[in-house]
């Protein structure tokens, strides 16, 4: 392997990081407030919710599936959690119920997709609508407010200067990284997405392993729902709406293939950061709110295009 090939290999692996670095440099020139430590922590804390869901979404997309119900799971877990907190005043119980909500939602999703063989797009779309309806019935459209300071600390507190959501984010990605790259289970995830039939023939229990993937993402979504509720101090009926798109965008910008079988977990967090930094810098610069969506769309397209160019170039070099 010559030097050129080596350079391209590095580029391929780190292409998302390079795009983020470019955006960071431009942003730093555009606004003096951007590079401050407090703003950096601010951005990471803001993206932590999307990125945590994104970790689960990476697993799902690696198997060749999709989960559109994550936003509704975020909302439902938050609502149940806040509701339990309001009636019992017990933080562990509230967090437990929130996570249990995710577990059950994921179990149901997995049942329809892995067991019954319904396409993930349809099954999770139906669940998205169904769960949003459950939220409306449960909250009656009015937000449930959270009074407990211990509960709020999950979203607002910090340990040694680092906000709690960022610490949770680090743990989630550490666990996801180990699970995906250092365990037999991780290899089955890639195998199912790469070639389902081959995976089955080689003795992998496709149903069980795919089922688990949907439980993982719903659990992470409910965790995100608890963080969101704690940060806002309230669980609104609309909480989590549209989060599925941010999570999917983070995974795709992170370079994971929508077709499944190809991709990495860590670039997803970079993908989420790219989206978060865009939001941040556009507000810092006080860009006309009508125009921000245009700028966001254009930058995402450029990022994905640049990503494809990197991939094509490295494929050529490797030939």
């Amino acid at each position, binding site marked *: 392997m010559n030097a050129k090939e080596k350079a391209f290999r590095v580029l391929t692996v780190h292409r998302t990081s390079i795009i983020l670095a470019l955006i960071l440099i431009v942003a730093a020139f555009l606004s003096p407030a951007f590079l401050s430590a407090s703003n950096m922590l601010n951005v990471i804390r803001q993206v932590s919710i999307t990125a945590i869901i994104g970790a689960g979404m990476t697993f799902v997309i690696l198997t060749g599936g999709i989960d559109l119900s994550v936003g509704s799971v975020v909302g439902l877990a938050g609502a149940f959690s806040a509701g339990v907190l309001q009636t019992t005043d017990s933080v562990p119980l509230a967090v437990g119920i929130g996570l249990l909500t995710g577990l059950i939602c994921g179990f149901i999703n997995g049942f329809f997709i892995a067991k019954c063989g319904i396409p993930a797009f349809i099954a999770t779309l139906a669940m998205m609508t169904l769960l949003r309806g459950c939220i*409306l019935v449960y909250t*009656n459209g009015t937000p449930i407010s959270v009074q407990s300071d211990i509960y709020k600390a999950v979203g607002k507190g910090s340990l040694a200067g680092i906000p709690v959501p960022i610490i949770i984010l680090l743990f989630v990605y550490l666990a996801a990284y180990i699970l995906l790259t250092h365990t037999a289970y991780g290899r089955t995830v890639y195998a199912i997405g790469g070639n389902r039939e081959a995976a089955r023939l080689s003795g992998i229990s496709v149903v069980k392993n795919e089922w688990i993937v949907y439980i993982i993402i719903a659990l992470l979504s409910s965790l995100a729902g608890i963080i969101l509720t704690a940060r806002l101090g309230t669980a609104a009926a609309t909480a989590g709406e549209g989060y599925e798109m941010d999570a999917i965008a983070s995974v795709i910008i992170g370079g994971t293939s929508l077709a499944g079988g190809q991709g990495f977990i860590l670039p997803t967090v970079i993908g989420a950061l790219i989206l978060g930094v865009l939001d941040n810098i556009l507000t810092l610069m006080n860009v006309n*709110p009508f125009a921000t969506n245009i700028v966001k769309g254009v930058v995402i397209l450029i990022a994905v295009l640049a990503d494809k160019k990197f991939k094509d170039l490295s494929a050529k070099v490797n030939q």
Partner: protein
Amino acid sequence: MKRSKKLLALVLSAAMIAATAAGCSTGAATSTAESKAAESAAPAQSSNKQLVIGLSMNTQTNPFFVSVKEGAQKGAEELGAKLVVTDAQNDASTQMKDVENLITQKPDLIIIDPADSDAIVSAIQEANDAKIPVITIDRAAKGGEVVSHMGFNAIKAGGLEGQFIADTLKGKGNVVEIQGIMGTNVAQDRSKGFNDVIAKYPDIKKVATQSADFDRAKAMKVMENILQANKDIQAVYAANDEMALGCLEAIEAAGRTKDIVLVGNDCLDDTMKAIKEDKMKATINEPPYFLGKNAVQTAVKYLKGEKVEKSVILESTLVTKENVDSVKTRD
């Protein structure tokens, strides 16, 4: 080719499921409202025929509009009318369908809270053709025959807030404006009212104008970013209370509650609490509950042959620490 056909089938069936689900949720909302009104109406209904009123709401996920519905239900209950409620989920085309479904049920009158002032016109015309009188609330329609429109003056509300900020800052300081969904008249009018007043004070500088779609979570994020960029802010105007409360979370986290005059609009319970605790300075009381109740009362009045005002502007008042204890937002 086979693949693309599969995809098409997928998308089509997805659309069908979504449509069915949406239909179900509207159906559920209708039936609960019906049964509630019917139960309580039973004793009142002795001599004449029970009036049936359709209420097409634009959304039921926003506390403001939930209160409108609750007020309307209470009004119907008191007057012994039957209320059929639909929820358009903030979508103009769903609302069109809702109104059509109401028309086929032949109610005596339809009250509409339009999701969109322009898009609702054809639905109102259909009701006109079916000889069913229409009352609009909150957002006025741009056409069609309506018996009466009642709502609040959003330009005035924005102006009251602008004046309050100008007076509190003594005509000098840096101000942030957080706007609502800028496709709606309410957001545009509140913004216009606010800016018309602020423009009169040359020493008040608008350091940031951003939209947060009337949403608490979005407002918190936007405010966090604005606080990072601007170390010197004296006042924040949020176009509704949900956003003001989101801003409050961000401002509190930054430890700048004492330096920033924060005002909202709508007089939610949480806002009143924040005003009592001195975390927020003002809001506008536009009680949605009474808007809903008034609409039903006016409808019944009209159906009994009494004269009703073509346009009713309900009073919006500034709420501060001085008068917060005497504010009435529901019965």
